[in-house]
């Protein structure tokens, strides 16, 4: 027995005296991600988690200007849009090469879009490309000369530029796709500020400085992305110095980091909206006054402060304020006013019929859906609207909600994150977007005026004119109240005090081109 204990002690000694806890080296940033990336092929993925890596490996023709959701040139030096809004001509930056050494030129751009869109393209089978419909408005892509690319659209489509700035529009090396085929997603090659080094499945993705980057070499030597799916474990790694940057910090933990001088907390509101879809086709919510009453009844302040603990802001309408140019700053959120809600319910002759409320257990951008659903239920019952919650796992939930609420439920939770002010209302608020017509208008809201405004905004190529149309739309929609507008999520990140120049973007992409670490 004594000998056994001695052996155990010796073994422990060896393990414990091994090189002191690995502090992350200077110049190398370790980022705690929420999951393993699906692929490093920007055309094949849909998750923000993957985008965080991709925007550092690749560039697009255009990108979002620092701190905004406005588009500026990137791999294209400049671009021109024809007056009818159907021809986009890009002049490409010269002298840029992909990480594999092949030149970036107009032919490469054509290859990228044809691979995604043309089912007969020899490398179309390296997909699938789930978000390729972002570019379904494209009729043809042509290389006019080595440095000029012309996109011809089937019809005017104003969100086209924002879609190009989205990761689905990042440009990959055709030579690398040809070499690796279906495995390109594990052997990525782009033009970005960082070059791919290795991907150890379930452990890390490593990228290193691209000293020749056209935007100037980044200060960091390398970045390591570590997948840590469990939020508590991510927290422990941050506290124990195993990672330098942590994203999507749970609300509970943000306060801890805020009080600790060894860490810095960053927050940035994004193009996100958390709302309740109301069934405007049948039941109590068919009456606009009952829908407005629900907006008055729900205490958004309490939801944002107590449940989300300040990780979100109260939403006023259908367009998140992150779309600064298109958001109507004059809109006020529905105040929490139970008396007004009761008065509206009486006026509408609401008979206290029970409501069915679909709640999800989790899901992308859904924040804390069960706790929020329960609090909302209590608020509604307080004004005399008995509410029955039905909870579903996320995929099941989408399967129930997306085909429409008719005959099943009166309301459902939902959240969207988009890259253009067009996307959400166009897909969810138009009459032509009813579920049976292939859209997401699961609550069957229909207002011809809104339909017209959205169609016109999509056709226009003038940003000021679009802004005017969107603002008009927001006012009507807020008054019609097809949804309960609840919250706009603020993305957060925590860094250790060794990290400098860190910044979050409204796009929620993690741009590391200027970040440094001591």
């Amino acid at each position, binding site marked *: 027995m004594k000998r056994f204990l001695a052996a155990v002690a010796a073994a422990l000694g060896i393990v414990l005296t091994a090189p002191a806890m690995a502090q992350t080296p200077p110049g190398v940033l370790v980022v705690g991600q929420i999951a393993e990336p699906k692929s490093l092929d920007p055309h094949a993925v849909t998750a923000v988690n993957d985008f965080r890596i991709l925007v550092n490996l690749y560039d697009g023709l255009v990108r979002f200007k620092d701190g905004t959701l406005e588009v500026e040139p990137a791999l294209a030096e400049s671009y021109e849009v024809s007056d009818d809004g159907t021809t986009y001509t890009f002049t490409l930056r010269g002298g840029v090469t992909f990480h594999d050494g092949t030149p970036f030129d107009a032919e490469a751009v054509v290859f990228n879009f044809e691979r995604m869109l043309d089912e007969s393209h020899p490398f179309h089978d390296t997909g699938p490309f789930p978000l390729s*419909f972002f570019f379904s408005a494209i009729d043809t892509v042509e290389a006019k000369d080595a440095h000029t690319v012309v996109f011809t659209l089937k019809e005017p489509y104003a969100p086209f530029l924002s879609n190009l700035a989205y990761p689905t529009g990042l440009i990959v090396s055709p030579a690398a796709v040809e070499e690796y085929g279906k495995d390109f997603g*594990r052997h990525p090659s782009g033009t970005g500020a960082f070059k791919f080094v290795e991907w150890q499945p379930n452990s890390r993705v490593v990228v290193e400085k691209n000293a020749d980057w056209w935007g100037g070499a980044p200060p960091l030597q390398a970045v390591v992305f570590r997948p840590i799916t*469990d939020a508590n474990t991510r927290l422990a790694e941050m506290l124990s110095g195993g990672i330098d940057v942590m994203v999507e910090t749970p609300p509970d933990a943000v306060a801890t980091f805020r009080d600790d001088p060894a860490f810095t907390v960053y927050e940035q509101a994004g193009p996100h909206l958390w709302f309740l879809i109301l069934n405007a086709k049948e039941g109590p919510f068919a009456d606009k006054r009952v829908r407005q009453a629900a907006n008055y009844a729900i205490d958004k302040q309490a939801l944002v402060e107590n449940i989300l603990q300040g990780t979100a802001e109260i939403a006023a309408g259908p367009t998140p304020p992150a779309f600064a140019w298109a958001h109507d700053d004059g809109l006020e959120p529905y105040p929490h006013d139970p008396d007004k809600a009761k008065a509206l319910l009486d006026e509408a002759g609401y008979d206290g019929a029970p409501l069915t409320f679909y709640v999800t257990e989790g899901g992308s951008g859904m924040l804390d859906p069960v706790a929020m659903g329960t609090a909302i239920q209590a608020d509604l019952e307080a004004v005399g609207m008995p509410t029955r919650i039905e909870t579903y796992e996320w995929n099941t939930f989408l399967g129930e909600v997306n085909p429409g609420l008719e005959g099943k439920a009166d309301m459902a939770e939902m959240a969207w994150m988009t890259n253009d002010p067009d996307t959400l209302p166009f897909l969810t608020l138009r009459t032509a977007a009813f579920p049976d017509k292939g859209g997401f208008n699961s609550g069957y809201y229909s207002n011809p005026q809104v339909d017209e405004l959205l169609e016109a905004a999509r056709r226009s190529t003038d940003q000021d004119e679009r802004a005017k149309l969107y603002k008009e739309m927001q006012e009507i929609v807020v008054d019609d109240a097809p949804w309960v507008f609840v919250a706009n999520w603020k993305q957060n990140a925590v860094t250790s005090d060794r990290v400098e120049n860190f910044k979050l973007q409204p796009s929620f992409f993690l741009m590391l081109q200027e970040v440094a670490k001591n």
Partner: protein
Amino acid sequence: MIAYVAKRLLAAVPVLFGLTIIVFLIMAMIPGDPATAILGSYATPENVERLNRQLGLDRSLVEQYLVWITNLFHGDFGRSYALNRPVIDEVMERLSATLLLAGTALVLASVLGLLAGVVSAVRQYGWTDRIVTFLVLVGISMPAFWLGLLLILLFAVTWRLFPASGMVAIYGGGGPLDILRHLVLPAVTLAVVATGVIARLTRTAMLEVLRQDYIRTARAKGLRERRVIFRHAFVAALVAVVPVIGIQAGFVLGGAVYVETVFQWPGIGSMLVNAIATRDILLVQGGVLVVAAAYVLFNLAADVVQTLLDPRLR
């Protein structure tokens, strides 16, 4: 013996085969499909249909299953669409990580459990027995994920003795010593429950054996107590304990799911959880098949060891 092992292995084939059908049916029955999981908010019927076609999921269930099983007989487990790599690569990598974790935990649990069981049986109703029995009860009752978080908090965050998660250090990692350091906390967490179960059974089995006549005879012969206990009683008690260790191996594999999630251990448990959430049916199929095969093998091994220990069974 060889004939026996071969017979048992053959008998496992229909079990595994039936299992693939059940898993396939369950995956087909749960709502939501991979295309919806991939597209999330953008899952319009049109987009879902297009993506399902590209993924080959627009064919009938029977057809899909036949394609899968035919490929399997050619040694092809298919390609995971969520991870975009061959299923077999992912499964084997994950399985080896799990086997390392579960194997270490099982060895730890067996050694500690047998030791604790023997000690408390020999000192029945003494203080040692009471303390061991109490600790064992605490061990059995403690939820593994909670214990894991507690250990992380103490040993990784407060004292910084062990890494909080992962299997290798992000920098300069990968050596056996590095993996060992990462292994300590999850293996201990995983071993706790199994240690308790094994200790309790060992104690009971030992108490029974110690009452037997031949033990009295051995003592009467004037053999040293240590020899009586370890040579005579312990080996006999082991016959009753070994099959339990075999069953515990199954539980340890199952329990690995939580522990792997808490410690971010890149094992097959956390892989299966993710695969189910993303409706990655081929990965689920491959993973379940391999885990089930491992389970069958563990039990077979336990039976073989038992036969070797107990001459009556030969």
